[in-house]
């Protein structure tokens, strides 16, 4: 360990740092709430006011951004996990390189799910007039929440799916390098993995389809 010792003071220091950050943030919020409560202004610490004041456009657009960015993150993460194994195992068994591109394509499909949902969600947003907001206040607020969570769940499900497919693809490449018949059977596991991203797409369409924030 000598030369490679980081000298930061032990293996747990990063974990302790993260834990301390969470605890301090939580304590700050609790302290702010207590300050409000003990000065008789408890009703002003209003979570519901925050939820309603954040514009529906903010909710919708951040949802769309999370949908595409986290899906692509999952796809990329899976691709580098499986790609490193394909290239590494291919040193001694170059025959695997073409067949194992299928694993990379499964990861690409995860990114495609993200872009499909992002495009579906974007169609819902358009200009509104102030009179329209008065008439349809409840509907627009509701639609904003739906678009946010549709995007969020797509991004997170595809992140999990992409990493899963990447890990299984890596195992498939290494097994394929040993014995060429194994790849197709381990591909079955990758199909189960990519079904996870598909479930996310299904719920995102259920939640986010036709939730319009527009006057036209």
């Amino acid at each position, binding site marked *: 360990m000598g030369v490679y010792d980081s000298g930061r003071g032990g293996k747990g220091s990063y974990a302790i740092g993260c834990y301390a950050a969470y605890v301090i943030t939580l304590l700050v919020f609790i302290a702010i709430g207590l300050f409000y409560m003990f000065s008789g202004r408890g009703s002003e610490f209003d979570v*519901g006011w925050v939820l309603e004041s954040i514009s529906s456009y903010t909710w919708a657009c951040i949802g769309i951004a999370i949908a595409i960015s986290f899906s692509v993150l999952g796809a990329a993460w899976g691709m580098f996990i499986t790609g490193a194994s394909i290239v590494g195992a291919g040193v001694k068994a170059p025959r695997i390189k073409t067949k194992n591109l299928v694993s990379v394509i499964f990861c690409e499909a995860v990114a495609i799910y993200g872009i499909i949902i992002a495009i579906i969600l974007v169609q819902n947003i358009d200009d509104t007039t102030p009179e329209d907001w008065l008439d349809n206040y409840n509907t627009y607020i*509701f639609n904003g929440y739906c678009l*946010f969570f*549709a995007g969020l*769940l797509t991004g997170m499900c595809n992140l999990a799916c992409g990493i899963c497919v990447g*890990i299984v693809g890596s195992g498939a490449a290494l097994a394929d390098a040993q014995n060429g018949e194994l790849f197709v059977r381990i591909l079955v596991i990758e199909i189960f993995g990519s079904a996870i991203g598909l479930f996310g797409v299904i719920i995102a369409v259920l939640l986010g389809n036709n939730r319009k924030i527009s006057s036209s």
Partner: protein
Amino acid sequence: MAAALTALAPAYSPFFGCMGAASAIIFSSLGAAYGTAKSGVGISAMAIMKPDLIMKSIIPVVMAGILAIYGLVVAALIAQGLDEAPTYDLYDGFCDFAAGLSVGFCGVAAGFAIGVVGDAGVRGTAQQPKLFVGMVLILIFGEVLGLYGLIIALILNTAH
């Protein structure tokens, strides 16, 4: 004019219902992904020595996929029941939020259990075939944890 909002049915009530639907599918997908990936690594490792056992060893992967289906069912039920503010009040919102969290976190837990047991189980079964039945029994107990979450989620979702 928009329908009248009350203190028990404020405009942000659907936020919690939507969060429930999202939590249901997100967390159960996390559990299913972990179970699939961890078991998949074990299967890839043991397939080199015992290729004929691969199809029997898909069982942990299938059981992890079922967890994602539990989350899908609850998320679909919640999403179908969502509506805008006074029709969908805070009671509905929080019931659906709790339903989503219960199936979601139970799915994560069950997915972790199925993944670790599946990985160790398929590697052990390759070396000692009599272990197969034991592995399946342990996997079933892990799967049932996700089922408990689904039961509570359905009770909560149908409570309003």
